[in-house]
Structures are given as structure tokens and as C-alpha cells.
């Protein structure tokens, strides 16, 4: 773990909000049809972190979620598994057992999710426990209190510490962009997370509105692209929360395809954090295959 960087390291180029949103709107007009649609929707499933993060989550619900992540539509073998299931730390063990051998990974939120308002030792301990219980991915939240008061070094130090606590587990750093409010903040927080060792930067917890938005995702993609071009090091992006329709998912994929390109069009470097999205994607895929929309009840609910 390194000490705090000089504040100049956290300086980022400005973002023009109007133009960023205009570019996002322009890319939203891409028309994705036929083979491209099928391919894109399957990719979206393979990139999905199927998520349940409720106080009322139960072992049974998690097992069901895992089953769905492994085989989203059991009768159709051409439909890939999801990338991961994403749960609270106390349910990691159950999830790990349920997905064992399937290739689906277990992600756990940690560090006092979703607000992050607890002390550093508790956060690190939570990470260690989640990893020990079988999580291969940790979704941490940044300290927005520190960030918004300008203590960027503290945010950075915490990301570094959590990264170390993760060991071999992948670290996704949740910026909670709905609380950062400005695009300039999003870019700065992205940079801090990347410098701190994030394997992924993630938009949101899903507990704050707005959760992921496409302009924010585009900005984060531009940030990881520029980081890669500067250093040769790739960082992933996870758009989480608020993505409910297949159409929306395809629009995110267009952002990935036209900003970062082929390398990021893989579950290794781009993820969706979602729960209800999966069924809409499945429904659209079945529509493409059969020419008809199926009933909602034809798809299991989690």
C-alpha cells in the first residue's frame, strides 16, 4: 500500500456536460437489428452481474438467483451464463456453493455498502471475510463524504487499502455517481479509483437515484480508454442500477463499442449490474428467434 499521492495526480481535464450528453444522444440513435441484436443481447447476458441486494434476501432467493445466472433460459443452450451473481457478504458462502463449477463468479458488495459510512478497519475486515467466504470479486463503495469535502487523498488511500485486502479477488470501485452530481466529479473519482488499483470502476450502488446513466457511463469509458492509451493498462467499467430494458443495454454496448472498442466488449472488461434486465433481454431474444413476444410468465422471476 502506497501513501497518499500528490493532489496534482488527481487533476483531470474538464468535461462539457452539454456536449457529453449530445454525444450520448447521438450514439443512442444507432439502429441495432437482426444478427447484431442477437449477438449484442447474448453479450449483455454474459456481461451481467445478476444482483440481489435487499435486506430481505434469503438463502433460498440467492440459490434461485444463482440457478438463473448459470442457466438463464434452461431450454436454450445457446444462451450464455451471466458473468456473476452479486450479493451481500453474509450470503457469499451460499452463492459460492450454488455456482460452484459453473464458471459464474461470486461478487460481494463490501465496505459498508451502500453508504460506506463506517470506519476503515471494519471495511477491510468485511472485505477479508467476503473473500474468505468465496467472493472472487469485491464491489466497494468510495467514501463520498471524503470525496465531496475535497479529501481526495483519503479516498485514494482507502481504495489502495481495500485493493490490498482483496488479495486475488477483483476490485470494483463504486463511485456512486448519483451522489457526485457533476461530470467533473465523476471523472476525478474515476481517476482516483484507477490510480488506487481498481480492476473495474462502477457507476452506482443501485440505492441512489439516478443510478447509472449513459452519459456517465460514456465518461467513465473515455476515462479508462485514456488511461489505457497512456499506460497500456486496461480497467473495466460496470454500469449498475436503472438498466431495465434490452434496448437500453444495447445502447450501453454501443457506447462501449464506439468508445473503447473490441477489447472491452467482453465480460472481463464491461459489466451490467442488474436484476430485472435479464428477463427483458431473454424476452427480446425469444422474439428474435420465434418472431413473437412470449408471455411474461414464460420467464422465471428471481
Amino acid at each position, binding site marked *: 500500500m502506497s501513501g497518499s499521492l500528490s493532489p496534482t495526480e488527481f487533476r483531470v*481535464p*474538464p*468535461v*462539457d456536460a*452539454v*456536449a*457529453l450528453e*449530445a*454525444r450520448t444522444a447521438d450514439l443512442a*440513435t*444507432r*439502429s*441495432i*437489428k*437482426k*444478427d*447484431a*441484436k442477437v*449477438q*449484442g443481447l447474448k*453479450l449483455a447476458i454474459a456481461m451481467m452481474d445478476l444482483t440481489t441486494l435487499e435486506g430481505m434476501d434469503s438463502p433460498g432467493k440467492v440459490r434461485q438467483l444463482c440457478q438463473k445466472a448459470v442457466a438463464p433460459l434452461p431450454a436454450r443452450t445457446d444462451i450464455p451464463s451471466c458473468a456473476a451473481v452479486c450479493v451481500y457478504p453474509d450470503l457469499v458462502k451460499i452463492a459460492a456453493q450454488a455456482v460452484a463449477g459453473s464458471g459464474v463468479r461470486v461478487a460481494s458488495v463490501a465496505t459498508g455498502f451502500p453508504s460506506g459510512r463506517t470506519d476503515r478497519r471494519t471495511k477491510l475486515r468485511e472485505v477479508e471475510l467476503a473473500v474468505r467466504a468465496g467472493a472472487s470479486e469485491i464491489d466497494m463503495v468510495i467514501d463520498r463524504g471524503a470525496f465531496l469535502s475535497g479529501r481526495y487523498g483519503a479516498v485514494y488511500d482507502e481504495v489502495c487499502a481495500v485493493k490490498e485486502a482483496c488479495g486475488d479477488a477483483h476490485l470494483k470501485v463504486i463511485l456512486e455517481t448519483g451522489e457526485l452530481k457533476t461530470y467533473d466529479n465523476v471523472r476525478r473519482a474515476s481517476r482516483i479509483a484507477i490510480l488506487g488499483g481498481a480492476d473495474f470502476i462502477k457507476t452506482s450502488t443501485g440505492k441512489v437515484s439516478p443510478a447509472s446513466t449513459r452519459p456517465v457511463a460514456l465518461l467513465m469509458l*473515455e476515462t479508462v*480508454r485514456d488511461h*489505457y*492509451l*497512456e*499506460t*497500456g*493498462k*486496461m480497467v473495466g467499467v460496470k454500469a449498475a442500477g436503472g438498466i431495465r430494458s434490452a434496448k437500453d443495454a444495447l445502447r450501453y*454496448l454501443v457506447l462501449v*463499442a*464506439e468508445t*473503447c*472498442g*473490441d*477489447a472491452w*466488449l467482453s465480460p472481463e472488461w464491461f459489466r451490467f449490474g442488474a436484476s430485472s434486465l435479464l428477463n427483458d433481454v431473454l424476452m427480446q431474444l425469444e422474439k428474435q428467434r420465434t418472431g413473437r413476444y412470449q408471455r411474461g410468465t414464460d420467464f422465471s422471476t428471481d
Partner: protein
Amino acid sequence: MAKTDNKTSVPKRRANNGKLSFGGKWQYAKAPESTDHVAIEDRYGLFIGGAWVRPKSGKYFATINPATEKKIAEVAQANKKDVDAAVQAAKKALPAWRKLSGDDRARFLFRIARILQERAREFAVLETLDNGKPIKETRDVDVPLAAQHFFYHAGWADKLELLFPGEKPEPVGVVGQIIPWNFPLLMAAWKIAPALAAGNTVVIKPAETSPLTALRLCEVFEQAELPAGVVNVVTGDGSTGAALVRHPDLNKVAFTGSTEVGKEIQKAVAGRSVDLTLELGGKAAHLVFEDAALDQAVEGVVRGIFFNQGHVCCAGSRLIVQESVHDLFVRKLQRRMARIRVGDPLDKNTDMGAIHSSEQLMRIRGLVQSGVDEGAVLFQPKCALPKNGFWFVPSMFTGVTQSHRISREEIFGPVLSVSTFRTPEEAVKKANDTSYGLSAGIWTDKGARILWVASRIRAGIVWNNTFNLFDAASPFGGYQESGFGREGGRQGLRAYVKLRSGLLPG
């Protein structure tokens, strides 16, 4: 090779730079807009006095699809007699039209606007077929803006007195209008809407190579039951336009097109009691300062020069970027240019369509060759172009000096020339080093600098952190060889009224 003091070399990648690849993993399927709903006749006559008439010349010529070079339809070649018939029809319609209350004229304009919206898809497809520009632009820019111009001016028709307090606005009379091929429908709307709102009648000549949407607009006028003769459309080549501007019964001429033809028109109306507005060429500068939001500035520069294949009089064809960010910015631009999807204009995912005509293509090629010959460095991304039709790859020259032809002459194509500056003073000086003065773009995050620079640039439109953004309420027009007069907004209406002082009865 010509060199300036400033750094002008092509940037090299740093050794540890990663490389991005695109389009290898997920390609968009073809998404062509359907053309089934657009009925096109084999042959079009002239629209004079509310009726479709055969040209007295007896001659027709073909209009082709620039993306395929296939003939779409034949249109009439109006001669001097046809032009005279059109002007007489407009003259005949004038007394009743100008006598209508503003409120009544507004009704017609609102109707036209609504019908345009209802038939938006048809107009978008037809414009794309006849012009070569991508459907995404005709659908999202040309047609909605054309409708907006009719809506906007409908709103003014009964409020003209409010625009000119203490004076009485009266129509100028019969107006002759000549419009270019780069925005055929939109330019027709820009010209016709304010003229009608102010109580004038119109004879309009669309460009020879893109007449179809102006002719289709006549169907809208019929549908809206616009009185016969209020708008007349004569198609033809340059001789038709020449006959129109020389017609003795015109009270005003409004022209959008090349500076060369604009000067001819100015000569033709000299010594006559004819009002004139000219909207001509441009060689606009983007000034990118080091503190700008660079990724968004890249988007703006791309929109500025590659929008409508660069066939835009206010296109930002000169990029003047602060030396400290030149290399980075050029690298970003190169990457972004490689993402521009060039091809079938009817495909909804096409960003850049066909060059409008073989003539224009030759002109672009000639000027690009001059850039190479004079020592500027050409960048063109790899780009597969269709076999038939007229195409040009998005292009950028670095190492351009102020004296290169490509930085002085209007190319009217997808060609950007890049040079650098070190101080704001130098930026302004270079931006103003042109015989034109239509538009400019300033890219900086600093508010004070925006105002400082904008107030020193001699151009009719100065955009800040955006480019090629149009609105009916915003006046458009130029300085110097970019012409005079304004279109759009309150200022645009001024050109379509005569003001009489004092409070006159009735």
C-alpha cells in the same frame, strides 16, 4: 515543405501507448430506412400560380441519387418565359396575400409546419435520396428544423408591429429566392417562411441537383390550401437563376450559395430598386484552448466539419489548436475520425453520406491535392467506400499554414486543416485571417476567455463549446465575403419588410 514557427509535425504515438481496435467483434447489421412510402413521379413540371405546369422551354433534365448515380426523376428546365410566368403569378397573388391579417397568414404557416411534421419521414427519405446526406441528419436535423422555421415565423406573422415599434412594417413585395443544394428543404423553409409571414409572395429556384424536396413542398402548400401564386417554384440551372434575378418586377432577391455567384447577382441587381441579401461561403475557425473539455471538443470539431459531408457554408474547416495540446488533440481526432461510418445514406447508422455531385467531388479532390502539393500532411482513416456514387474519406491536414490554399479557399467537403497558436491574441489573429466571416467556434472552459475571444472575432455566428447548432430564433449570416443580411430570428424578418415611419392609419 512550408513551415511556420509553431509546431506543425504529425504527432507520434508514445512508445507504451496501447492500441485500440474497433469493429472486429460486434458489427451493426444493415439498417436501411425503407423508401416504399415515398412515391416519386418520373417527371416534374413547374409550380406556378398554384398549378403544375409544363415548362415553356419544353426541356427537362435528370436529377440523380449521388449515392448510386442512378436517375431519380426528371425536372423541368425553366427558361426566361417560365420565370416571367412565375413572377407574374407571384405579382398577381401579392395584393390579396398582403391584405390578409397577420393572424390569417399565421394559420397557413402553422398548417404548413404541421403537415411537414406529419410527412417528416417522407421528406427525410426524399432528401436523402436526392442529396446524398445520411438519413440520420435529414430525419433529426433538416426536416425538424424546416418545420420549426414555419412554426417560428407563424408566431411572428401577427406580431410584426411589435418588432418595429413606432414604424409600420409592410411587405417588400415579390421576392426572388435562389437556394443551394446542401440543405435543399431547410433552405427553402429559411427563405419562404419569413417572406410569407411578412406578407410577401415568392418565386423560388431550388438548386439544379437537388430540386425534389422543394417540389414536394409544393404538395404541402396545396394540402395547406395556400392561395395560388403565393409561392412559385421554378427549377433549372444557372440560366434560370440568372433570368430570375434580372426580372424587372422583383422587389427583392435573397440568395444562398457560393460567393462567386453571389457577386454575379450583386452586379445583376445593381442600379435597380431591388433589396438584396446574400448568404455566401465561409472558412470558419475552431479555436481550441488547452483548458477545453477536449473529448467534447473533438466531438464538436467532428460535427463542425464532417456534418453533411462538410457541405456546410458555416463548416468549421480550420482547426486552430493551442500548441500545448496539439499532439494530443490531433491523436484524439484521428481516432474519432476512424469511427465515422461512411456509406449508404439510407442506412440509419451512417454518419457521413455521399458527396453531392461529381463536380463537387472533383473540386474537393483538387483542393486536397493542392494541400498535399503545398506540403501539408494528409491523414485519412482506412475506410471502405461503396463502388458507385460520389464518395470522399473524412480527411485532415496537419502542418497547415495560413497561406496554404486549403486554409484560404472554401473546400465545401469533409476536409479539416489544422494549425496551432500559442496566445489568445494569435488565435484571434489567425481566426480572422480570412476573406470570409460566417462562423467560428471557441472551445475553452473559461468564461472570461469566451467573451474576450468572441468579441474580437469577425464572424456572424460564434459558437462556444458547440458547433453547427441552428435555431429558427437565432439570426444567421456573415461578414465580408460571407455576405450580408441575416436569416432567422427577428433580424431575419427585417429583410422582408419595408418600414414606414409614423403611425399610419390601417
